[in-house]
C-alpha cells in the first residue's frame, strides 16, 4: 500500500465484544484524519427510570445493564447506597462480597481470554473454529469459566442477574461446608490460571506502547475490588465521592455512550492494565511471581498484553477466593438493617473491565431521587479512539483487510462492554 491516498477502515459490526458498536477510521496517506468508535446500541436510560424506585431495588435493576458483569453493578449499587444511608456491613459480608466478585472476574476473564481474545492471536474467526485445533485449551477454558460461574451461582442462585445481593448484605449467605465444596475446583482453577499466564506469554504481541494515564481503585491492604481511593500514575488520589469533580462526561454525536475524560487532561485507561500497574504490590505472591516469570513487570504499556494481565488477575481471583473460603465464618445475620434515610452516596468498584461509578441521592422514604452511573467502557471510549489514531497510522502500509482486523483487535483488547456503555463493535478504515 502506498503512503498516498485516503482510505477508510470500517468495521460495521464489531465482533466478539459485548454489545453493538462500529469503528470508523479515515486516513489520508499515513495520517489519520478521523476516528470514531460509534456506539449505536440503543439507549436504555437506566438513570432516568431509577428515579422513583426504592433503593432496595437498585441492585436488581442496575444488574440488568449488563448480563456479563451484573455483580459489578450490584456491588457498586449496594456500596453507594450504604454510603448514602451511613450503614456499615458485617466484616464477613465484606469478605463474601469479594468472593462473589472473584467469581465474576474468573468467569468474565476466562470468557475474554480464551473465547473472545485468543482467536485474534491464533488467527481464528471464533472460539468454535479454534476448538477444532485446540480442543483441550477450549475445554479447559470452559471449565475455568464454569468454576467462576459456580461461585456466583452458589452465592447468588444463578450466573446471570444473581438474586442474593442486597443493601446491607445478602438475602441469604452460604454455609461454611457449602463454600468448602468449591475448594477442589478452585485449586484446579488456580493451576489452570498459572498455565494461562504461561500460555498467553507465548503469543505474539505487536510493538505498541502508549503513554497512558492509568486509573484504578487502590486499597492499602489488598488488591482493590470494592473499596479504596481512586488513584492514577499522573498524581490523582481521591475519594470516590470526588469522582465527578475530577472527571467529566461528554456527549458526542456518534455515540450513545458518553465519553469520560479527566478534567483538564483528557483520555485515560481503566481495567486490568491500570490495576496491574498501580497495584502490582498488592497482588498475592503467587500472582506476582507468575507475572515476573512471564516477564510482565509494571508499567505494562502495551495494550495487547492485557490478555496476559487478565491471566495474572485470574491467578489473583483464584488465590483470593481460596483464602476467603478457608477463613470464612458466616456473619451473625445475612444483612444489617437498612432504614430509610435521606442522603447521597457514591461508590466505585472494579468491574472486570475497569472502574464502575455509581451515585445515588435518596429521600427520607428511601426513594431514589437521582442516580448516576459511569460504566468502564464509556471511560475507556475516548482512550480507544486515541489508541486507534496512533495504531492505524502505524498500519498505513498494510493491506486494508489486515489493517482492519488489527484495528478490531486493538479494540477487543479493552474487552469493551457496549451493553454497559449503552453496546457492539463494527471497524471502518477509510483511506484516500
Amino acid at each position, binding site marked *: 500500500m502506498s503512503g498516498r491516498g485516503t482510505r477508510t477502515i470500517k468495521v460495521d*459490526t464489531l465482533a466478539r465484544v459485548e454489545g453493538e458498536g462500529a469503528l470508523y477510521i479515515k486516513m489520508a496517506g499515513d495520517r489519520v484524519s478521523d476516528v470514531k468508535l460509534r456506539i449505536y446500541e440503543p439507549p436504555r436510560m437506566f438513570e*432516568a427510570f431509577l428515579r422513583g424506585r426504592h433503593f432496595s431495588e437498585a441492585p436488581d435493576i442496575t444488574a440488568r445493564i449488563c448480563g456479563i458483569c451484573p455483580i459489578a453493578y450490584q456491588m457498586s449499587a449496594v456500596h453507594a447506597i450504604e454510603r448514602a444511608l451511613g450503614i456499615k456491613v458485617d466484616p464477613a459480608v465484606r469478605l463474601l462480597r469479594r468472593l462473589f466478585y472473584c467469581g465474576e472476574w474468573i468467569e468474565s476473564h476466562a*470468557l475474554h481470554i480464551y473465547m473472545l481474545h485468543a482467536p485474534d492471536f491464533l488467527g481464528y474467526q471464533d472460539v468454535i473454529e479454534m476448538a477444532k485445533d485446540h480442543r483441550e485449551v477450549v*475445554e479447559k477454558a470452559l471449565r475455568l469459566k464454569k468454576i467462576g460461574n459456580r461461585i456466583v451461582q452458589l452465592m447468588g442462585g444463578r450466573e*446471570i442477574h444473581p*438474586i442474593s445481593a442486597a443493601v446491607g448484605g445478602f438475602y441469604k449467605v452460604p454455609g461454611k461446608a457449602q463454600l468448602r465444596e468449591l475448594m477442589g475446583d478452585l485449586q484446579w482453577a488456580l493451576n489452570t490460571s498459572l498455565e494461562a499466564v504461561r500460555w498467553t506469554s507465548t503469543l505474539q504481541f505487536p510493538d505498541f506502547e502508549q503513554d497512558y494515564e492509568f486509573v484504578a481503585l487502590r486499597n492499602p491492604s489488598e488488591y482493590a475490588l470494592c473499596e479504596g481511593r481512586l488513584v492514577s500514575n499522573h498524581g490523582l488520589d481521591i475519594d470516590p465521592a470526588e469522582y465527578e469533580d475530577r472527571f467529566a462526561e461528554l456527549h458526542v454525536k456518534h455515540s450513545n455512550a*458518553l465519553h469520560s475524560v479527566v478534567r483538564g487532561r483528557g483520555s485515560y485507561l481503566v481495567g486490568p492494565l491500570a490495576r496491574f500497574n498501580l497495584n502490582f504490590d498488592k497482588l498475592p505472591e503467587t500472582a506476582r511471581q507468575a507475572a515476573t516469570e512471564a516477564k510482565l513487570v509494571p508499567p505494562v504499556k502495551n495494550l495487547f498484553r492485557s490478555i496476559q494481565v487478565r491471566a495474572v488477575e485470574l491467578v489473583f481471583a483464584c488465590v483470593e477466593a481460596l483464602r476467603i473460603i478457608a477463613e470464612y465464618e458466616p456473619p451473625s445475620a445475612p444483612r444489617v438493617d437498612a432504614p430509610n434515610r435521606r442522603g447521597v452516596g457514591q461508590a466505585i468498584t472494579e468491574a472486570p473491565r475497569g472502574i464502575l461509578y455509581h451515585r445515588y441521592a435518596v429521600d427520607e422514604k428511601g426513594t431514589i431521587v437521582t442516580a448516576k452511573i459511569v460504566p468502564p467502557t464509556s471511560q475507556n471510549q475516548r482512550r480507544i479512539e486515541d489508541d486507534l489514531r496512533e495504531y492505524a497510522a502505524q498500519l498505513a502500509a498494510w493491506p486494508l483487510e489486515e489493517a482492519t482486523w488489527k484495528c478490531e483487535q486493538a479494540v477487543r483488547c479493552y474487552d469493551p462492554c457496549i451493553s454497559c456503555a449503552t453496546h457492539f463493535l463494527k471497524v471502518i478504515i477509510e483511506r484516500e
Partner: protein
Amino acid sequence: MSSEPKRKKKAGAKPTIGVFKFASCDGCQLSLLDAEDELLGVVGAVEIAYFPEASRNMVDGPYDIGLVEGSITTHHDAERIQEVRRKCKTLITLGACATAGGIQALRNWKDVDEFIRVVYATPQFVSTLKLSTPIAEHVPVDFELRGCPINKYQLIELISATLAGRKPNIPTYSVCMECKRKANVCISVARGIACLGPVTQAGCGALCPSYDRGCYGCFGPMETPNTASLTSQFRVLGQSDDQISRAFRSFNAWAWQFRRASEECKPT
C-alpha cells in the same frame, strides 16, 4: 411454535442459527456461552452462522432458527426486525426484553424526551421511539422464551425440540409449583413476605423464595395469573399501592397482565 415440518436439507448440512440483538443487556445470548457443558455439543449439531458476540464470521441468511434478544426502541431497529424475520424460518425470542419490552419499557409510562434529557447532555443526538416494545408487536414470533435472564436448560430444550420438530417441554404454570416441588415453606404465608410467585411463570427454579426473598417476576405472567387476588393479598400484607404497582412494573412491566395490574393500583 411453527408446526411446519423441517424442510429436508442436503445431506450433511447442519441447521443454521443466527443470534440477533436489540435493546438488551446481552445476558440471554450469553446463556448460550454459559452452557459450558453443552456448548461444544450444540455447536457440533448446528452451524452458528451469525453470532457477533462470539464470532467475526458473519454468514448471511437465511437461517433455520433465529434467536432474538432485546426489545424494539428505535426506528432503525423496527425496520431491522422485519429483515431478521424474513431471514429466519423459525423465530424465537429470548428473555424479558424481547418478550415483554424489558426494564427499559418503564419509559412507556413516561415522557421519553424527559428521560433522554436526564441522561444525555445533547438530546437531539439521540434517536429513540416513545415505547419499548416486544418483538411480537412487530413480527410473528414462533416461540417466546421467558426469563430475565432465560434459563439456559430451557434454551437447549427449545433448540433441540425445534430441530426435532416437536413441542418443547417448557411449563407455563407458576413459580409456586417449583416451590412446592422443592419443599420450600411458603415465605408469603409463613413470613408475610410479598411474593410475585403465584402470578409468575416458572422457569427459575423458585430461586428467590429459596434465598429468603419474594419472587420479583423475572419470568413474566404465568398462563392464567390472578393478579387482582394477589394485589389484595399484598394489601393485607401492608404493601402500599405504590409498592404494589412497582412490583408489577419491573422486567416484564409491559406484559399486558402485569401492565394492567400495575395500572389498577396506580392510575397513570
